[in-house]
């Protein structure tokens, strides 16, 4: 049994220890907001926070996540400035990559309260959006920053 703390809740899961955290989150915990896109950390759809840092959950064996504080898209409050900015700027299209984009953006704003375009490039370039919402992602991050996003640690 592996013990996990996700979005402040404790879970015990019966999964082979090498199972990527992504699949445990999706299939064992039923939190399907975290998405599979590539399985090789090239797209960012599976981004979660581990102890406040944005990480690709497809690359983390579940055993390595034991004892750490994991946050998924479901753990970010609806009132979070990033989620609000995402709605205001109408960022989403198909929506598949958006939880990962939001998790990366929340982590960025926790590090840098007023990120520059360059900061956004370096924090968000690992998140692919096939629908091409990048311009709106950028705008939403600036708006969330202006609204005083204080970070992803809640």
């Amino acid at each position, binding site marked *: 049994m592996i013990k996990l703390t996700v979005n402040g809740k404790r879970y015990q899961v019966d*999964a*082979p220890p090498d*199972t*990527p955290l992504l*699949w445990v989150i*999706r*299939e*064992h915990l*039923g*939190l*399907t*907001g*975290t*998405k*599979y*896109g*590539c*399985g*090789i950390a*090239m*797209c960012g*759809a599976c981004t979660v926070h581990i102890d406040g840092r944005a990480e690709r959950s497809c690359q983390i064996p579940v055993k390595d996540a034991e004892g750490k504080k994991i946050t*998924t*898209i*479901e753990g970010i409050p*609806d009132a979070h400035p990033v*989620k609000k900015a*995402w*709605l205001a700027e*109408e*960022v*989403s*299209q*198909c*929506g*598949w*990559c*958006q*939880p990962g984009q*939001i998790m990366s953006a929340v982590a960025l704003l926790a590090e840098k309260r007023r990120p520059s375009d360059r900061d*956004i*490039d*370096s924090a*968000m*370039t*690992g*998140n*692919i*959006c*096939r*629908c*091409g*919402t*990048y*311009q*709106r*992602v*950028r705008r939403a991050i600036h708006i969330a920053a202006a609204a005083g996003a204080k970070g992803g640690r809640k």
Partner: protein
Amino acid sequence: MNDIMNMSRRDFLKAGAVLGGGLVLGFRLPFAGFPFEAAAAQEAPYTPNAFIRIGSDNTVTFIVNKSEMGQGVYTSLPMLIAEELECDWHKIRVESSPVDPIYNHTMFGPMMVTGGSTSVRSEWERLSKAGAAAREMLIAAAADVWKVDKGSCRAEKGRVVHKSGRKLTYGQLAERAAKLAVPTEVRLKEPARYKVIGKPRHRLDSPEKVNGKAEFGLDVHAPGMLTALVARPPVFGGKVVSFSAGRAKGVAGVTDVVQVPSGVAVVATGFWPALKGREALEVVWDEGEGAGLSTAGMREEYANLAKTAGAVARKDGDPDGALAQAAKRISAEYEVPYLAHATMEPLNCFVDLRGDRCEIRTGTQFQTSDRNAAARVAGLKPEQVNIHTTYLGGGFGRRANPQSDFVAEAVQVAKGVNKPVKVVWTREDDMKGGFYRPMWYDRISAGLDGSGNLVAWRHTIVGQSIIAGTPFESVMVKGGIDDASVEGAQNIPYAIPNVLVDLHSPKNVVPVLWWRSVGHSHTAFVVESFIDEAAHAAGKDPYEFRRALLARHPRHKGALELAAQKAAWGKKLPAGRARGIAVHESFGSFIAQVAEVSVSPKGEVRVHRVVCAIDCGRFVNPDTIAAQMESGIVFGLSAALHGAITLKNGRVEQSNFDDYPLLRMNEMPKVEVHIVPSQEPPGGVGEPGVPPLAPAVANAVFAATGARLRILPMTPEAVLRAMKSA
């Protein structure tokens, strides 16, 4: 009629009843003009169904028959209904429709499908009338209650209001309205009175996409469900000779290993054990004739074909004679590769097959085809198959497959396991899985007279037909011409007296399919690049050159002028930057784009800004148009800069986003979208943003460096090569 149909019909009515005996408006609307109507009626004598359901709690549910894959139909189609229904926008809910003839496409014939950038165009009238009819019935119900004349009542924000000031909500009126006859004639609003249409609206699907609750196909879960991965042949057209399941079955969590026509499925309790199991599976393949195929060899074959005469798609005047007599002749070859759709959500399909019914949950664009395919595989009637359409994590045409590959295969797997099963494709499976945009080779020549006027145009196109071999072949391929191969080339708008467009459609085992903007994705690149070459040969400004040739095409010209004006065409740019322009019509819309680029000494193309002007006629949601243009531009730029699927020894050489890169945030240009005011009939917006992008960028690279990029993608190596030969 059978149980499943009755079931879904009962469920519909029951759902209405649960919501307080509300109004479930079923329309077979009594208006003419839709050629499919008779055929659809014959296909199933099943009339009641619904686009609108109003509950006694005042919720208004719109049942949408188009798949939401990012293009915004779960907002734009409700806007059409809401405009006439006069309901409270905040009380609207959206449901995906089941598969039923009443939801068939109004332009494409008896099938339920989302594609061709047609959703708004094809549903505008039907949904407006649905909303108007419902409104009239609610007004009639209120007039009935108050014993007043209908004319003294009006509808607003989900209520009927009498001139005396009395009010009843739609919820209060729903049950009574449901008993009234559906009006045979309804009057639609004059556009001047629109309150919803034409103004930006927030997407109804955004909240659940932002909080992670939106359900996509891959998120589907059912009690006892298993997950399957399929080992498919390494070469298209390959077959299983034999397999050994022993080691795969030894992986904890693997429950079954079953052979299916497309390969061998490893079924397990979850994705990871299924993946591990598939890695342990041993299969001997017969690779078949495809094993000898390589794109390098195909390129040679295509280049040779392009030198010979093909099936004639268009012939005006005497192109060969005019070319021979021209004062100046130019000619060139253009090449574009196979492309993968690479939707962010890899393919997947959930199937629950039990006895005489089959429940499918997946993100599909083509429910009718998939349902028929599932029925064939399961040995059921189509009516015994139900498809629940989830959100699609991207479609771009890949999920509208006349061969229903991922759905038919999933039903095959389900037949082998007797439990609910979800077949999941890894990214690698998806990338190597075929159904690509075809690879194309074009040979093109033009002749100019002594004053630099275009007098001849000769364009030979070589590439696979995406329609050949599908049920659409008999309708869509005429005289050897697949319209989808020549669209955008055959109908070039430029005033040229002598034109020849011909086509070769070689066949091979690589499966091909429509890819966002279909034939236009390649023809616009060739035509709009070569018209630029012609302008250069004539010594004229590429914008003015086009403009002069578009006198009889005001919508092309209007878009071109707006884009040029907004991009400050002709004004100086900082050193190293240059502009390129392109204009193209597709899917009923006219789009011009101006790209501003620079090229590094290493040959890297950087696109700084794209100005886009669109004339899509009357439109519903301007913010959706902006979003779709941004989206098409990014899609086009991914392909222009990076996209290529290549084959060697029959094997696809790409597998994931490391070797099939997509545009990323750090490469994103500034995009500006301008809409040409227009009262023309509505055009599409999902696809038309793609075609002009690659030529606009290539033309800008030419303006910046003098290097003409005739081969996509514009990799640094290709750019350096072109710069050297410039």
